[in-house]
């Protein structure tokens, strides 16, 4: 397509218009989705992608951060499929969830739609959303003991869900037969199709008023601008090499710690991120595919430089090196269901390494696990129920302030369903939903507090499943700050309270009426040396019950005693 010149003012106007289209697609799905992971937790994303490369051009602001980098791979997979089949047509919509080519995990259903203008392919629109259940061994698909993707969920490669405007109902039938919650799946699918319809309508209107050439030129320019922004930020950093290592508890099968290692190398306006030394592919599901690894680097970078746009140009001055056999470049059919835990650890090590160079721009580690906890059973009338949610923890301290208490994971913007909504929908009662004292990492600015959730079963029996992390290795402080408390999960048995052998991962815990599970999540790491925290701030934490006196004395010394809070 011929490239028109575009003035900077039209570019600014068009950038806003296109971002609004993606935002509106997000909003459409959030409102109409059936499952709360999309509707409440916003575990979804939409955007516009390059016709030739699949690179991200524009992505919505309200979707899940990790998708900002990963969606391009879903589009690339469809571009390859269409090139192979040679039958791309206007009105097609592809669907798939295969995580090894599209990134993240099998729960994320991706829809990709080519957008044609005057008979010519102009760009792609895509929608991704986390579905409630897609079969597999564990309801909700967080199976910590999976050894292959086949135990995680049904795997759908890129196929045409809509063929030149005609919905292929047999594809829908296949999908709905492979989920425990067909109605929820159908509702979410409808929502994603509506979002794509809307994107097409809005893009039509935009091209009508500005012309295809101008919009196309804007696409090119936005990529160049993103690259220029990234280069300027990198050039401002000191040259050098900084390393950090952290660990995953285990892979859910063997209780062996798994190192995640990174080296950041800055030279001029270029950055190399090298994961040499990271553990090899594991039998259990803490592997991730290469697209996820690249997307995760983008998330970490954007947290450090929040004003960078959601555009592939950002990654041009960055080289990412991943060893071939590492758990960060796993191949089919290695299980990837726990990808959230691995990418959270990647963000932690990137922050810890960068803090050595630019501590003022870095926050200490957040709680570092999403704690996917599901409790499932059958009611007296035979109806199945699955309560599935992610749980929160503390954010890290920063140069300006203590960390946030009970925040969401850095890869997500998900809110948590209210206890009253969960109690109304499922036969459980929360005995406690509270902040967890002594969980914050000490520091000049301490981390935020984690939480305690204690859940009691009100039906005759059920089973609990947990996929979590940080049970063995605590979230780290930066710039001299100390580590937070580790994750702790306990559950009631006939013989009293028990803990999983693998710390934060366990399948099929039997529960009877009146028995409880208790999840105590990590706080955030501290920022700056604890001995520089003001006595008044320490005394206030003690007065509020955030910190016990004994723990205060232990980590800060007794100098705070007598200080007014």
């Amino acid at each position, binding site marked *: 397509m011929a490239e028109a010149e575009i003035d*900077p*003012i039209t570019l*600014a*106007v068009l*950038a*806003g*218009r296109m971002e*609004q289209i993606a935002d*509106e697609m997000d909003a459409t799905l959030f*409102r*109409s*989705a*059936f499952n709360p992971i999309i*509707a409440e937790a916003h575990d979804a994303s939409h955007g516009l992608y390059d016709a030739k490369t699949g690179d991200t051009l524009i992505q919505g602001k*309200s979707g899940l*951060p990790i998708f900002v980098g990963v969606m391009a791979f879903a589009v690339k997979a469809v571009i390859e499929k269409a090139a192979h089949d040679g039958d791309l047509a206007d009105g097609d919509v592809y669907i798939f969830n295969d995580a090894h080519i599209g990134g993240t995990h099998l729960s994320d259903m991706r829809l990709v739609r080519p957008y044609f203008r005057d008979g010519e392919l102009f760009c792609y629109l895509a929608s991704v959303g986390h579905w409630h259940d897609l079969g597999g061994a564990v309801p909700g698909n967080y199976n910590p003991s999976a050894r292959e993707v086949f135990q995680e969920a049904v795997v759908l490669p890129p196929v045409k869900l809509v063929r030149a405007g005609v919905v292929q109902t047999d594809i829908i039938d296949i999908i709905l037969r492979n989920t425990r*919650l067909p*109605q929820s799946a*159908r*509702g979410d699918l*409808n*929502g994603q199709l*509506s979002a794509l319809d809307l994107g097409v309508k809005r893009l039509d209107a935009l091209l009508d008023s500005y012309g295809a050439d101008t919009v196309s030129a804007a696409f090119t320019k936005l990529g160049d601008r993103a690259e*220029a*922004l990234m280069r300027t*930020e990198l050039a401002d950093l000191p040259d050098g090499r900084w390393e950090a290592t952290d660990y995953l508890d285990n892979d859910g099968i063997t209780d062996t710690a798994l190192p995640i290692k990174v080296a950041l190398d800055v030279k001029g306006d270029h950055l190399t991120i090298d994961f040499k030394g990271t553990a090899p592919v594991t039998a259990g599901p803490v592997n991730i595919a290469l697209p996820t690894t690249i997307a995760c680097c983008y998330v970490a970078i*954007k*947290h450090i430089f*929040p*004003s960078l746009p959601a555009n592939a140009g950002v990654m041009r001055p960055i080289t990412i090196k991943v060893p071939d056999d590492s758990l960060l470049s796993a191949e089919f059919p290695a299980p990837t269901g726990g990808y959230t835990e691995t990418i959270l650890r990647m963000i932690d090590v990137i922050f810890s390494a960068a803090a050595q160079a630019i501590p003022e721009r870095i926050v200490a580690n*957040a709680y570092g696990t999403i704690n996917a906890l599901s409790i499932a059973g059958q009611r007296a009338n035979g109806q199945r129920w699955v309560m599935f949610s992610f749980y*929160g923890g503390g*954010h*890290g301290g920063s140069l*300006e302030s203590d*960390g*946030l*208490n*009970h*925040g*969401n994971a850095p890869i997500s*913007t998900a*809110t*948590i369903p*209210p206890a*009253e*909504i969960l*109690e*109304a929908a499922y036969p459980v*009662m929360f*005995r406690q*939903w*509270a902040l967890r004292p002594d969980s914050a990492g000490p520091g000049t600015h301490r981390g*935020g507090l984690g*939480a305690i959730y*204690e859940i009691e079963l*009100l039906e005759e029996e059920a089973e609990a499943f947990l996929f979590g992390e940080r049970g063995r290795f605590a979230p780290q402080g930066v710039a001299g700050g100390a580590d937070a408390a580790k994750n702790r999960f306990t559950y009631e048995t006939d013989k009293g309270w028990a803990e999983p052998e693998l710390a934060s991962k366990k399948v099929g815990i039997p529960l009877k009426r009146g028995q409880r599970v208790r999840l105590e999540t990590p706080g955030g790491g501290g920022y700056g040396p604890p001995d520089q925290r003001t006595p008044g701030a320490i005394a206030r934490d003690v007065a*509020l*019950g*955030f910190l016990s006196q004994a723990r205060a004395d232990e980590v800060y010394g007794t100098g705070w005693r007598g200080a007014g809070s």
Partner: protein
Amino acid sequence: MSIVGVDVGGTFTDIFILDEATGKASVAKVPTTRPDQSGGFLAGIKSAGDDLSAMRTVVHGTTAGTNALLERKGAKIGLITTQGFRDTLEMRRRDRRATWGLRGDFDPVVPRDRRLQVPERTLADGTIETPIDLAAVEAAAHDLLAMGCEAVALVFINAYANPANEQAAAQALRALWPNPHVSVSSEILPEIREFERTSTTALNAYLQPEVAGYLTRLEAGLRDGGFGGEFLLVQSNGGVMAVDTACRLPVRTALSGPAAGVIAAAYIATSASYADIITGDVGGTSFDVSLIADGQSALAPQTSIDFGMVVRTPMIEITTIGAGGGSIAWVDKGGLLNIGPESAGSDPGPVAYGRGNDRPTVTDANIVLGRIDADKPIGGGLETLDVDAAKRAIDTHVGTPLGLVTEDAAEAILKVANARMAGAIRLVSIERGHDPQRFSFMPFGGGGALHACALVDECELARALVPRFPGVTSALGCVIADMRQDFVQTINTSLNALDEDELGAMIQQHADEGMRLLDASGVRFGGRDVQIELDMAYAGQTHTVAVPIPLQMNDGHVTPPDRNAIANAFEEAYRAAFSRLLDGGVQRVLNLRTSTIGRRPKFDLSTLAPGQDKADAEPYGSRPVRIAGAWHDTALYDRLTLPVGTIVDGPAILAQPDTTILVEPGFRASVDTYGNLIIERQAAS
């Protein structure tokens, strides 16, 4: 007798007085006093005449509540809650301040040591699992009093499903609490979702001593001046309430001021036969947009006043973006021109104000292009504006980085600012299924009318309508707003299992309470209405659709709606929202919402209209104004003297004390019979 509307804003207190006998209206503007706004309020009222006994009704739109929340100047309060749920207020819904960056923390309005727990528990189905321990409630209350709390909030888990424990605790609490400042969640918001209910109840308690004190001082001041009528407050839902209701439910005033403006806009537009409008208020730091379809403004179920400070009570839906007159224009490291969100506000304000800001703002661009009269600035109390300083700032921060001369850079700033404002208009219109071509743009406040033609063009709106007194729109809204009470009750059942009689009884209870409040207010109403809506969804969905249900009432007695009618209404509302239904989906009813409305008499806006003397229709001068890349010699008019029927073709500037209107080339402005200015594209010829 007269009806008086008083809107207290950040800078000015606006007064609108309607003489009921003559139908004549008058307006006044006095400086707002701070921190106690009651001084300016009373001074403003008295500027219209010392005899307050001639006033029948005084209606107040207030920002006292909003400011107390934003500036964290509420009372020292405590919270008593269910064992195990002490931290709900602080844990929020596990959100964070910004998607990117992870920085910052959060201080709730009640710190943890003043959040006390008592043994009690109700289950989701309403079963009392643990009865309330009243001795523990009393002990907690004494502890909070000993800590110096002036107000208390009471929130029990699942109290929406069965308020018995909470009500028993409330009774014990009120028996010993030394003042009326006891906020109880099942009275304020008997709706599922504990964080939203806790936040709303706690913020009510936080505001109660402050707002009740302020309103009591005002009322005493009015009575001392001989006032013997009713004193009413505008709520965030755009309706008014009696002063005693406001003292009990101050959280309902959180968006009082802007809501009154939208109500007035709806009335002005409907009177002028343009019932579909989009209002735009260009302030110092923000652009506030609201959509009125067929004379009705949309209500949003909740809003966040600030991070973690959620108020869930129906509010006029107002969308705000950070692009106002004081928003700063800057070029980022990638070479893209941005407007805001950083703002110079009104202090120090634009560069041309000469108060220390040296980064260019939207207003500076308007000044450099001749759109604002540098020798006669409005509002700010300045003698002149420093045009050269504004030019230098634009050159340094925008012109040089983009390679543009000053005038082009200034136009670029306006173009990007207008694009952002247009984005907000699209958000409230296209994104919610409204076709902008049906809508008129109504600027109010000081700055909007400069951007009206650009926004009409950019969004393909039908026209712009500039009210005769855009600066006192909110005060006018106070005078005409209806009295309105909103009630909610969570039901949470499948439609099949819905007990129609029980639903009828809930509606009856809401209606009776609403009518009692209308009776108690002493206000004469032109009519009364009860409206209901059900929040409904398919089983499994968490987002609900608001479903209006036709209600039958005879002699105040409610006929319960039947399930079939509800099912049909749901399908209609659902299809309208998402264009497809879910085959075989089970319909659920989450909440009942009832509104009781007392219609207040309206007045004829044509009494505000100017005269007919054609001699006043001539320009008083001209100056060069830059529009679309060229300087135009532009006629200047005194807007308020223009007689009805005047037609002015662009380019033209119409000035009045509280705003400046730009009619761009290709547009034609005419003065309608109410004194509104209607700006439309000139017919292509």
